[in-house]
């Protein structure tokens, strides 16, 4: 493994849920004796640890509601964690508050490409203004230098320069995706977080954008954290993959190995769910029944996948399986893997 860029240890985010108290309840609470009832907590990200090497692409997969987006927002410092540490090349980022991070010099080191290129661009900014914005805020470039840099970024991302004066509604989906990428790489980040960057695109455009991302990574030496639920896309782009289920990482390892030989039953179900054109490939497929467990005040002893898992034995409800190594570079959180 090359030098580590990002090191995340025991990161957790718990949200307080439950109805807001009315004024009357607050007052009556003041006169109640005994300890206050602990608030109801939603465990969005629960003790997650992993690392990303320099120049590495790590895929993060899992179903909606599993905490992928919260994890991304924590790493991106848009959200403050409840506990844990985020180190970017030795700098502890949790010391900075999310609220003040926009003005922090470390802001330029982690950038993000958002899910819907259309919704994440300011409709009143031209493409050039959108790309220039992070440069104006985070770099020390002069105005004429910024203009040159915007042109260079347009060339790098394959956006024709004559489109730079256009507004988002005058651009196609693929062109908007290019603007989103150009904006994110403008300040030369070390870590680029990509949240389903091609989910809204047609396959023919998706290929071009994925190839562009691959090429940019090679040229600029960035590390990628690639969030997606299209496993075929993850397989194409990622060196390593993390599988998340209800706030926990349940399996990690080199992408090719995880796809060829998934160890965790949830990973097996995910891979079984990839549509197969070839009927010969559709054998021994695992279908999940039931709904996921609630992430609100989960029982710390019960495996998060219990109840939906085709195996699910008594020991799964008695001790939570922890992530443990199975072979070189692979980890899985299951008693039976």
């Amino acid at each position, binding site marked *: 493994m090359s030098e580590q860029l990002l090191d995340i240890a025991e990161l957790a985010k718990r949200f307080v849920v439950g109805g807001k108290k009315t004024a009357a309840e607050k007052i009556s609470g003041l006169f109640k004796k005994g300890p206050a009832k602990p608030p109801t907590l939603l465990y969005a990200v629960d003790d997650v640890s992993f690392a990303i090497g320099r120049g590495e692409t790590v895929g993060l997969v899992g*179903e*909606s509601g599993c905490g992928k987006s919260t994890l991304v927002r924590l790493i991106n410092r848009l959200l403050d964690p409840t506990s844990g540490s985020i180190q970017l090349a030795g700098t502890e980022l949790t010391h900075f508050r999310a609220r003040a991070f926009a003005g922090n010099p470390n802001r330029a080191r982690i950038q993000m490409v958002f899910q819907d290129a259309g919704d994440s661009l300011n409709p009143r900014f031209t493409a050039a203004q959108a790309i220039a914005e992070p440069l104006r805020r985070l770099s020390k470039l002069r105005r004429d230098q910024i203009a040159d840099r915007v042109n260079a970024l347009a060339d790098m991302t394959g956006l024709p320069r004559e489109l730079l004066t256009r507004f988002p509604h005058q651009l*196609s989906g693929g062109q908007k995706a290019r603007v989103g990428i150009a904006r994110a790489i403008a300040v030369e980040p070390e870590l680029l977080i990509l949240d389903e960057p091609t989910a809204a695109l*047609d*396959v*023919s*455009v*998706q*290929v*071009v954008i*994925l*190839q562009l991302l*691959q090429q940019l990574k090679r040229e600029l030496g960035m590390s990628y954290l690639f969030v997606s*639920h*299209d*496993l*075929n*896309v993850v*397989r*194409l*782009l990622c060196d390593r993959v993390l599988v998340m289920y209800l706030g926990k990482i349940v399996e990690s390892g080199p992408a090719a190995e995880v*796809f060829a030989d998934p160890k965790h039953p949830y990973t097996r*179900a*995910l891979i*079984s*769910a*990839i*549509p*197969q*054109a*070839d*009927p010969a*490939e*559709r054998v021994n*497929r695992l*279908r*999940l*029944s*039931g*709904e996921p467990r609630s992430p609100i005040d989960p029982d710390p002893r019960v495996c998060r996948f219990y109840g939906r898992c085709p195996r699910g034995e008594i020991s799964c409800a008695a001790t939570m399986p922890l992530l443990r190594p199975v072979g070189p570079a692979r980890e899985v959180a299951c008693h039976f893997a």
Partner: protein
Amino acid sequence: MTAIPALAVENLSVEFRTRSGVVKVLEHVGFSVAKGETVALVGESGSGKSVTAFAVMGILDAAGRVTAGQAMFGGADLLAQSERDLAELRGRELSMIFQNPRTALNPIRRVGQQIADVLTRHGGATRDTAPRLAIEMLKKVRIPDPERRALAYPFELSGGMCQRVMIAIAIACRPALLIADEPTTGLDVTTQAVIMDLIGDLAREAGMATIFITHDLALAAEHCDRIVVMHAGHIVETAPGPELFAHPRHPYSAKLLAATPGETVSLEAMASIPGGLPDLRRADLPPCRYSERCERRLDLCVQPLVSHSVGERHDVACWNPL
């Protein structure tokens, strides 16, 4: 095909009148679906998949107009029916699953009531029997604890659950034809797999003809008997899934397959499709709307084009097929 088609669309052409001109959205679209058969309409955004479905259901936008063609269903032409007759057919004989279940369901009515509504309007149920039948339907789409879930509002259910409710509404009156318009977009892959299996099982059980609209070729190949590939309002190729994947004959189908991420291809080996869709407002649209993007284009390609058979159940509309 020997089976009598449940739906036969012939020569369907649809135009949309817009401020910037007439858009020829569909031209000479023809395909059929047999009883118990599942046919996929596949294509990129703007290829006319949904418009085809809307035209068949008679729910085109007011700006849209069917300029030619027919859709034969049970001995009658759906496109010639009055709105009143169509309203009788929809829900009972024809039904549709929409793309986004959260917006397609009524947010302020309990899901059980919404199923009961269809049953009382079209299924001959009464006020007394409908609630019980609605719970029956929820059970059929494998919603756990149906008695309690029938009382839930859509916002209280997950996306997968809402989609099951949509399916329950669509199949409540045992329609002869079901149109599913991207029924799993926005759902997780694990949920997608379960929902697609469910639609397939129900269709097989009831001998329903199903049209499945998607842009995911692999999903279409897995769950459908035949795939109809659309490009810019034309049908370019029709073939069974495995056949299409193994031997695509239309250059566009081949390009689409080459752009689809799969298990074995590398990113370097994948290729995009050069060019974009032609402007469908143009007066001088070529007979083959793919010809301007096509690498196999011949002088012949300016001649009027007809779809011809190139194998068993395999048709292609191209002068120079692969």
